[in-house]
């Protein structure tokens, strides 16, 4: 490890240690805010792991998030917590593989619409099951997991998603995904099995999304399909990742922080106009920062770099 990466590693470790101390130092409101920040960080980063390089806009976030939450709703009381998380992860990955195999041949608008349809389909299937088999639309989630434990688990998941993203970025899989995002035909003619590469990343992304849903489930105490499969979650994750910049590992984080505070502010002060203001915020972001904050920062940085390189 060279000196530069040693410094970065130390800083990252310090940030994680400081973040881990937060629940011990602040009240429950701030821990709740921290949970929001962490959960959206995992969701947006996991989304960008797949959608960033491939440029396939997925609206399936909530499908996997809901699967995670419902696994906890169904099994949370019967099985140990870690086992429930494991089962949720397996289900999420399995669904991602099945769905991915059948849909990753689609691209562009068709993929967007399909993923949105998928989320709705899963919500309807769960609703049907709950009404006709379980005989109740909602479920109570009585799991002995404290708010602080949720925070720490999400923090661990955040670290994991960044480490995973970093490793993928340095791997052949990461290069394959970038080539696919630039030109899928060229990718295939380079020997890249594009379907398999997309499928692998789609499953990794779904794994983190499902686990976030599972870890978040005890927060609600009560879940029903409208809560666990709320399409707004998918939209928010996309807009956060796009605002920050989906092309870089830390890009989505730059979108998550301001938007979590904005959403918090809007829902606290204008509860009746929340959706309208949210829509306006989305439009504004797409118009003003189409390439994301990370690209703006990087553009400035590169600007300096190029001027420096121009001097022989």
């Amino acid at each position: 490890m060279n000196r530069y990466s040693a410094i970065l590693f130390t800083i990252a470790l310090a940030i994680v240690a400081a973040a881990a101390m937060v629940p011990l130092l602040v009240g429950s409101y701030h821990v709740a805010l921290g949970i929001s920040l962490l959960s959206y960080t995992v969701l947006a980063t996991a989304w960008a792991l797949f959608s960033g390089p491939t440029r396939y806009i997925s609206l399936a976030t909530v499908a996997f998030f809901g699967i995670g939450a419902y696994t906890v709703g169904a099994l949370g009381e019967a099985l140990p917590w870690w086992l429930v998380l494991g089962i949720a992860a397996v289900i999420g990955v399995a669904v991602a593989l099945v769905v991915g195999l059948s849909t990753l041949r689609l691209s562009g608008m068709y993929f967007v619409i399909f993923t949105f349809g998928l989320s709705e389909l899963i919500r309807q299937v769960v609703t049907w099951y709950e009404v006709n088999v379980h005989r109740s639309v909602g479920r109570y989630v009585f799991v002995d997991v404290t708010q602080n434990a949720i925070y720490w688990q999400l923090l661990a998941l955040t670290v994991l998603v960044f480490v995973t993203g970093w490793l993928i970025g340095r791997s052949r899989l990461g290069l394959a995904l970038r080539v696919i995002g630039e030109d899928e035909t060229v990718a295939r003619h380079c020997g890249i099995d594009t379907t398999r590469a997309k499928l692998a990343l789609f499953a990794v992304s779904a794994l983190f999304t499902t686990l976030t849903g599972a870890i978040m489930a005890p927060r609600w105490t009560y879940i029903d399909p409208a809560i666990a499969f709320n399409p707004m979650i998918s939209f928010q994750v996309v807009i956060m990742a796009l605002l920050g910049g989906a092309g870089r590992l830390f890009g989505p984080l730059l979108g998550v922080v301001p938007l979590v505070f904005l959403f918090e502010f809007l829902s606290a002060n204008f509860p009746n106009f929340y959706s309208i203001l949210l829509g306006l915020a989305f439009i504004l972001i797409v118009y003003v920062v189409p390439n994301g904050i990370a690209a703006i920062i990087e553009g400035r940085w590169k600007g300096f770099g190029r001027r420096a390189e121009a001097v022989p």
Partner: protein
Amino acid sequence: MTALLEVTAARKAFGGLVAVNDLGFAVARGEILGLIGPNGSGKTTMLNLISGALRCDAGDIRFKGHAIGRLPSHRIARLGIGRTFQLVRVLTAMTCRENVIAGLAFRRSPLWGAAAVEHAGALLARVGLEDKARLTADQLTYIDQKRLELARALALEPDLLLLDEWLAGLNPSELNAGIALVRSLRADGLTIILVEHVMDAIRSLCNRCIVMNAGRKIAEGPAAGVLAEREVVRAYLGEADA
């Protein structure tokens, strides 16, 4: 000697338009085969059939004895067929080095890490881009993008290289350099199918030519001979000149 590539009765239609019609030919190891004909005669479609970008409606394509007509293009690439595109397709947001590594990292015997960087440097030098390894591909001129595309195709360590109008749009001195480069590839043992309109290149490079018109083969033989054939002249220039 067995042929490296054998195409038998290949056919491909797009709706009512038969782009490749009952086409058969063979390519021997180490030769440069010219695939020529007027625009729209089916040359690029034939390359797309060989490289797996399209699938034949009928017929058979065999490469090193493997039937590749039904294989996806990434498997064909790994078997050792590299190609360039008529409209140059480089990965514009990636550096030249990364463009070449994209060809090295997923081939039959993949290269990664320091070995890939070193080999990419050698391939860039081979096509004359050694100074531009760190530039993104969108910063290159059109000609350099073509060179980069060739380096990426060579990165696959192909036995067969498909060049789709790779020499088009070059000025005379670039053309000479381009012809010399292609010739040096053959000297290294590569087999090449050259789709080209530049007659000087065809005459000086191709061992044999196949002339296509409206999806069919209308002539085959040494370049000088086929270019003089009456039907070939008619296909290119019309009845009055034939």
